[in-house]
């Protein structure tokens, strides 16, 4: 029995220490005098790796999810003769929920796992140590540009996801199922509020971007530098980040739309 409590206690202490470390890592990576001449190219490169390379999966998924929403929404709404509400249904579910959440999940799987694996491998091959010995702070050199790239590119990806999704819903709803084109857009326009829906969706995606990127970087930086350790860290990134996105989504939704 005491063994059990000891284990629980150690777990708790470990996770508190982990949070503390992550926070310290955050502070020392972000704070410090900026060196635009050196950091800008690094940032651009990471924007490419993290953002541009995730674009295809985001756009394709967005299109399909929008089309499915259009199809499903239509079959439900047509029973009530309310198929002209298809526009707001597609737009609201994408902007408020699916855009940020699905982008967050896909981003965790596509970019988050890659970030963890890359940093874990840099650690295993002593590249991080070697940076440190060359008097270059790995937090600023390796972590910071990846963090900013993740933080900026994910909201952009979420916007693309929603836009493509709405277009997909429009294609199916209006082009295929015959919902009036004008009604589709006009009803959507009157139902979607830029502050309540668009802005809240963007805020959500920024929060998810922060959490997912940070978890990925932290897991990579703390990975046990062996092949098993890196694979465990990568898995753990995807699992933790996905759960964090879903959990936070509930909390944010409750705060934004619940009260």
């Amino acid at each position, binding site marked *: 029995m005491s063994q059990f409590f000891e284990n629980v206690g150690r777990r708790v202490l470990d996770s508190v220490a982990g949070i503390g470390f992550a926070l310290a890592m955050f502070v020392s990576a972000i704070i410090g005098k900026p060196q635009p001449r*050196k950091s800008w190219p690094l940032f651009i490169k990471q924007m490419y790796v993290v953002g541009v390379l995730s674009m295809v999966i985001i756009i394709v998924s967005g299109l399909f999810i929008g089309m499915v929403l259009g199809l499903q929404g239509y079959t439900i709404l047509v029973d009530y003769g309310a198929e002209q509400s298809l526009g707001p249904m597609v737009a609201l579910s994408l902007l408020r929920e699916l855009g940020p959440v699905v982008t967050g999940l896909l981003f965790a799987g596509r970019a988050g796992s890659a970030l963890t694996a890359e940093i874990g491998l*840099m650690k295993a*091959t*002593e*590249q991080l*140590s*070697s940076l*440190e*010995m*060359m*008097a*270059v*702070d790995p937090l600023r050199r390796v972590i910071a540009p990846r963090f900013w790239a993740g933080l900026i590119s994910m909201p952009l990806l979420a916007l693309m996801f929603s836009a493509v999704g709405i277009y997909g819903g429009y294609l199916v709803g209006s082009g295929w199922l015959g919902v009036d084109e004008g009604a589709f857009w006009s009803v959507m326009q009157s139902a979607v509020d830029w502050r309540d829906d668009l802005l809240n969706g963007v805020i959500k995606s920024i929060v998810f971007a922060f959490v997912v990127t940070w978890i990925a970087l932290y897991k990579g930086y703390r990975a046990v530098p062996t092949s098993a350790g890196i694979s465990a860290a990568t898995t753990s990134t995807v699992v933790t980040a996905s759960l964090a996105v879903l959990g936070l989504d509930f909390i944010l939704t409750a705060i934004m739309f619940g009260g």
Partner: protein
Amino acid sequence: MTQLVELKDVHFAHGDRPLYNGLSLTVPKGKVIAVMGPSGIGKTTLLKLIGGQLKPNKGSIKVAGEEVPKLSRDKLYELRKRMSMLFQSGALFTDMSVFDNVAFPLREHTELPENIIRSVVLMKLEAVGLRGARDLMPSELSGGMARRAALARAIALDPELIMYDEPFAGQDPISMGVIVKLIKSLNQSLGLTSIVVSHDVKEVLSIADYAYVIADKKVVGEGTPDELRNNDTDIIKQFLQGNADGPVAFHYSNDDFTTDLLGGEK
């Protein structure tokens, strides 16, 4: 003679496992110092302690007169610009070409224009015989070439101290010979101080001015290569001659084998 590195009574533990109990050694300026010992005694840890990546639990570590564990971050980074380390794996940045790898410390720490950086990089690559490989990526290099490229990077900023972590491990005899020669000639031509951590006794003793043997959490023997060869302490003899058994046990645990085997029936 001035001492570049001085370790006094250093205690260090990895978690619960003590690695050093009162380790002391000194590295005079301009010499090649060898640190030898069986695997698993934390020779890499020793270099990380000197480089300030790890902090000792007790004891003093001085590099160029500065107490490393007590330095502020900025001072430590200043100090690190004067030393460099050659990692066992080379630790080249895999996303850059050989040229960019060698240019990296110059671009980070100096404001030199690109054409001067180019000349310096080519000079350093020439010194390790890899000028022709400058456009290759690290993944295209053989193990020996990667280590030489890493060496070129390590000397890019003309450090005062260079630490080699197992420079000979896993090398074929020819590239081993090349690296031995390189360490020796760099030491003489650039006037730098070298610490070579290795368990390849023959090679390391051929270039070392002075050597330490570490075992059992402290220095068990030291001297010039000749003195060590004539040393008749059991442990040093065992290590230099590579005997399987002796004071350093072949078996990890000291339990009696028969009792361990019969243990299940107790």
